[in-house]
């Protein structure tokens, strides 16, 4: 294992435990679900359209409770997406079932971009790897941090 890879692994592990130090305003906004116990299609429709990037997780961005949910958080972080709404389905059984029905998708995590269902962890990872995620974020007016990283590398 190369040194840089293990350093990166350590970084990812640290991310997994929450934003180094501060924590209070970590990545994403733990939007919660307290306001009204959302489970109906109308409520979910409003929820997924309220923010450009919306994710439904097991756990929070600071403390994901599932490896697949964590992967979604880490991918968004890699792209520098900080302003996204995250809903913890473990807090709300109605939301947990409701979003599965609404998306017609049987598993969590689920990712919405601009109100449109994108998929789960597998698809987001695929989009990350093939560059589609950079393009999709661009359409939302979000510049992926990976573009800047690449520029840095090119200029060296």
């Amino acid at each position, binding site marked *: *294992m190369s040194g840089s*890879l293990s350093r*990166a*692994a350590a970084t*990812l592990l640290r991310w*997994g435990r929450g934003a180094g130090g501060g924590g209070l305003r970590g990545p994403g906004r733990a939007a919660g679900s307290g306001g009204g116990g959302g489970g109906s299609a109308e409520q979910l429709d409003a929820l997924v359209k309220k923010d450009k990037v919306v994710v439904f997780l*097991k*756990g929070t961005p600071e403390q*994901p*409770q*599932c*490896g*697949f*949910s*964590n*992967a979604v958080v*880490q*991918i968004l972080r*890699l792209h520098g997406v900080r302003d996204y709404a995250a809903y913890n389905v473990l807090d709300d059984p109605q939301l947990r079932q409701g979003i599965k029905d609404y998306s*017609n*998708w*049987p*598993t969590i995590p689920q990712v919405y971009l601009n109100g449109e*269902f*994108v*998929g*789960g*962890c*597998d*698809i987001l*990872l*695929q*989009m*990350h*790897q*093939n*560059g589609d995620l950079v393009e999709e974020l661009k359409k939302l007016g979000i510049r992926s941090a*990976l573009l800047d*990283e*690449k520029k840095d*590398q090119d200029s060296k």
Partner: protein
Amino acid sequence: MLSGQLVGRLFSMAGRVCLSRSSAGLGTIGPVEAAIRTKLEQALNPEVLELRNESGGHAVPPGSETHFRVAVVSSRFEGLSPLQRHRLVHAALSEELAGPVHALAIQARTPAQWQENPQLDISPPCLGGSKKTRGTP
């Protein structure tokens, strides 16, 4: 993309740590696994179908059939988006997904795509109740 490879490698590293505990359960095929295989074969006529029970990496009793990863290689996926491909797999397994199966990681590829990288990936480690046991040999 560099970071893509990095994430991929991290996934597989972490997965190996997590899955190393599950080896006791490997080798036996349970009824859910058998049903998944049969239904995907019937629905998608795959050229390649690789299925792994990853339940051992999670906080479930030994021998559980709750977490799976599948690679389905089928010409039926030609021209379909990832979302459409996943939905076909979900549709074939609707009964299992509504019942015993909590997690299903899907690699849905066309035969040409599979040839580029013919391997069943490894899932990221569980972060749930098995946290305490993670990392122990």
